[in-house]
C-alpha cells in the first residue's frame, strides 16, 4: 500500500498524485493513440462513440455528480449542439468554428435553463429539465426550414480550412484530442475555487451560501459548462453518424446519459468514462449472448431494456458508487489484503435530510 504524506497544499491539488498515476495514464494514452492500428474499423468506430459519450458524460457529471443538480433533459443540449454543428457545417463553416458555435449556443441555452434552476430544487428541477427536453425535441421536429424536421439532415465530413477528415482514423484522433482536452479541463476546473464551490453546493447549499458562495452564479455556471460539453459531444456525434434526426435526442437518450453516469459512478471523473464504455459495450454484449439463449428470450425485443433496467436497479441498490466505486473497493481490498474489514464503504442513511425542506 502506498502512503502519501502531504506536506503542502500544492501536493493536495496535484493532478498526478504519484508516479503510478503518470505511468498508468500514460500507458492508457499510448494504447489509445495506437488503437487505429490495433483494432478493426468497426471497433474503432465504437471507441469513437465511447469518447463522444464520455465528453457528454463529463458534462452531466459536472452538473449532477459535482454540483448536485440533475437534469432529465440533457439530450436536448446534445441535440442543440448536433443541429448547430450540422447547419453551420453545411453552410460551409470550418469544423473548429462550427464546434465553437455549437458549444457556445448550447451553453447559452444551458444558461437559460439554469435560470429557473435557481428557484426550483430536487425533483422540481428534474421536471423543469424534462419539460425543456420535450420542448427542444418538438422544436427540432417542427422547425423544418432549419432542421429538416422529422426527416433529419445529413452533415458533411468535418473540414478544417481545406483539410477534410474523411477517414475514421482521422476523426478518431480528433475525438481523442477533444476528449483529452475536456478531461483536463474538468480536472483543472474541479481543483480550482470554482470546482470546489460546485462541490460545496452539492454537499450543502446552506453551508455553501454561508461560506460566501454565490449560489445563483455557480449554479448557472455549472449548467452552462455542462451544456457546452454536451453541445460539443452532440457536434461530434452528428459528424460520427453523418445523419441526425430529432428522435435521437429524446427522453430515452437523456435517460441513457443519466444511466451512464450512475452506472459509471456519480461524482467521479472516471465514472464518466466507465459509464460510456458500459453504455456502448452493453448492446454489443447482449447481441453476442443472444445467440446462446433460447430464441423466445434471445430474440425478444425487450431484452435490452430489461437488462438495462436490471443493471440500473442492481447498481443503485448494491453499488451506489457505480463501476468506479467497485474498482475502488477491489483496489482497497488488494492493498489492505489481510486487514480488509466488511462495511468499510457502508452508506449512512439520512432520514432527516428531507428534500421537501431543502
Amino acid at each position, binding site marked *: 500500500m502506498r502512503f502519501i504524506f502531504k506536506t503542502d497544499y500544492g501536493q493536495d491539488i496535484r493532478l498526478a498524485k504519484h508516479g503510478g498515476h503518470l505511468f498508468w495514464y500514460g500507458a492508457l494514452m499510448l494504447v489509445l493513440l495506437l488503437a487505429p492500428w490495433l483494432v478493426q474499423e468497426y471497433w474503432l468506430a465504437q471507441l469513437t462513440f465511447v469518447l463522444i459519450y464520455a465528453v457528454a458524460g463529463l458534462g452531466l457529471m459536472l452538473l*449532477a455528480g459535482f454540483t448536485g443538480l*440533475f437534469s432529465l433533459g440533457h439530450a436536448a443540449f446534445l441535440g442543440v449542439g448536433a443541429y448547430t454543428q450540422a447547419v453551420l457545417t453545411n453552410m460551409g463553416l470550418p469544423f473548429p468554428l462550427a464546434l465553437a458555435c455549437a458549444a457556445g449556443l448550447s451553453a447559452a441555452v444551458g444558461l437559460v435553463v439554469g435560470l*429557473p434552476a435557481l*428557484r*426550483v430544487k*430536487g*425533483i*422540481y428541477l*428534474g*421536471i*423543469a429539465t*424534462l*419539460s*425543456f427536453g*420535450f*420542448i427542444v425535441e*418538438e422544436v427540432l*421536429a*417542427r422547425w423544418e426550414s432549419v432542421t429538416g424536421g422529422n426527416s433529419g439532415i445529413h452533415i458533411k465530413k468535418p473540414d478544417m480550412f481545406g483539410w477534410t477528415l474523411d477517414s475514421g482514423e482521422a476523426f478518431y484522433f480528433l475525438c481523442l484530442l477533444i476528449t483529452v482536452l475536456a478531461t483536463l479541463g474538468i480536472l483543472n476546473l474541479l481543483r480550482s475555487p470554482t470546482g470546489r464551490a460546485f462541490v460545496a453546493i452539492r454537499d450543502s447549499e*446552506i453551508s455553501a451560501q454561508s461560506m460566501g458562495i454565490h449560489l445563483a452564479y455557480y449554479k448557472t455556471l455549472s449548467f452552462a459548462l455542462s451544456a457546452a460539453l454536451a453541445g460539443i459531444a452532440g457536434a461530434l456525434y452528428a459528424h460520427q453518424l453523418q445523419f441526425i434526426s430529432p428522435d435521437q435526442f429524446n*427522453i430515452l437518450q437523456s*435517460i441513457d446519459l*443519466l*444511466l451512464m453516469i*450512475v452506472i459509471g459512478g*456519480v461524482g467521479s471523473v472516471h465514472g464518466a468514462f466507465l459509464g460510456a464504455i458500459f453504455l456502448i459495450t452493453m448492446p454489443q454484449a447482449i447481441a453476442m449472448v443472444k445467440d446462446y439463449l433460447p430464441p*423466445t*428470450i434471445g430474440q*425478444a*425485443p*425487450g*431484452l*435490452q*431494456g*430489461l*437488462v*438495462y*433496467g*436490471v*443493471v*440500473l*436497479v442492481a447498481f*443503485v*441498490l448494491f453499488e*451506489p458508487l457505480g463501476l468506479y466505486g467497485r474498482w475502488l473497493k477491489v483496489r482497497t481490498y488488494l492493498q489492505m489484503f489481510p486487514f480488509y474489514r466488511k462495511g468499510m464503504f457502508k*452508506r449512512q*442513511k*439520512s*432520514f*432527516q*435530510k*428531507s*428534500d*421537501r*425542506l*431543502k
Partner: protein
Amino acid sequence: MQLLQLVISGIAQGCIYGLIALGFVLIYKATETVSFAQGELMMLGAFGGLAGMTLLGFPYWLSVLGAIAAMALFGMVLERVVIRPILGQPAFSIVMLTIGIGYVARGLITMIPNIGTETHMLPVPYKDQIWHLAGLVLNVEQMVVIGVTGVLCVLLYTLFRYSKLGIAMQAASQNQLAAYYMGIPVKRLNGIAWGLAAAVAAIAGLLLAPITFVHANMGFIGLKAFPAAVVGGFGSLPGAIVGGLIIGIVESLSGFYLPDGFKDTAAYIVVLIMLVVKPNGLFGEKLSKKV
C-alpha cells in the same frame, strides 16, 4: 358548443393525468420519493385487466377488481423489496431506481411472445357507445373516466379524513420521525402508500385502455402526469387532480386552436410557466427549514 365539447374531452384526458399524478403524490407524501415508474405501473394494470378478460375469461368487473388488487399487492411488494433498502438516500438515486423499475417492467412485458409487442383492445362493455345530451356528443368511455375519477376522489377523501389509517398516513407524511415516536408504523404505512399508488395507477390504466388501446409503451403517458403534479403542487392530493384537469383542458384546447405541435408540448410549457411563477404549485404548501 364546440368549446364545451373540447373541454369535456380535455377533462376526461385530464382525469387520467390526475390519477397518475395522484400516485406520484401519494408516494411523495409518504416516502418523499418520486416514482418514475408510475406510468409503467399503469401499463401493468392495463395488461392485468387484459389478461383477466382474454386469457382467463373472467367477466369484466371481476378482472378489473382482480387487476387492481394484484397491482396493489405488487406495489407493496415492490416497496418492500426494492424501495425500502435505499430509503433515506438522496432523491437522485431513488429517481434512477424507479426509472430502472420502469425499464424492467417495459422490458418484461415486451418479452412476452406475441403479446408484448402488439396493440390490444380491452373488451369493455361500454365500448363505442355515445350519448347525445343537449346537442353535445358524449363519449361513454370519457364519461366513465370522469365518473370513476370522481368516485375515487370521494373514496380517498373519506379514507384520509375519517379512517384511522388515513389519519396515520397524514401524520407520517408530515413528519416521519415524530410519527415513529407516536407509535405509528411508518414503514408499513409506506408500503400501503405504494400499494395504494399502484392500485390508483391500475385504475388509470384500465380507464385509459378503451381510449388508447393497451400496449407496452402506454406508460410514457406517465411523463405527462409530472406537469399535472407540479401544477397542482407536488405534495397535494386534490392538487394532483386539479393539475391533471388543467393540463388536460389546456392540451385539448391548444390542440384545436393553436398550430400543430403545441398539443404535445402544451403541458410542458404550462409547467415551465408554473415553475417560474409559483414553484410550489397551486395547492402546495410552503415549507421552510431551520438550520
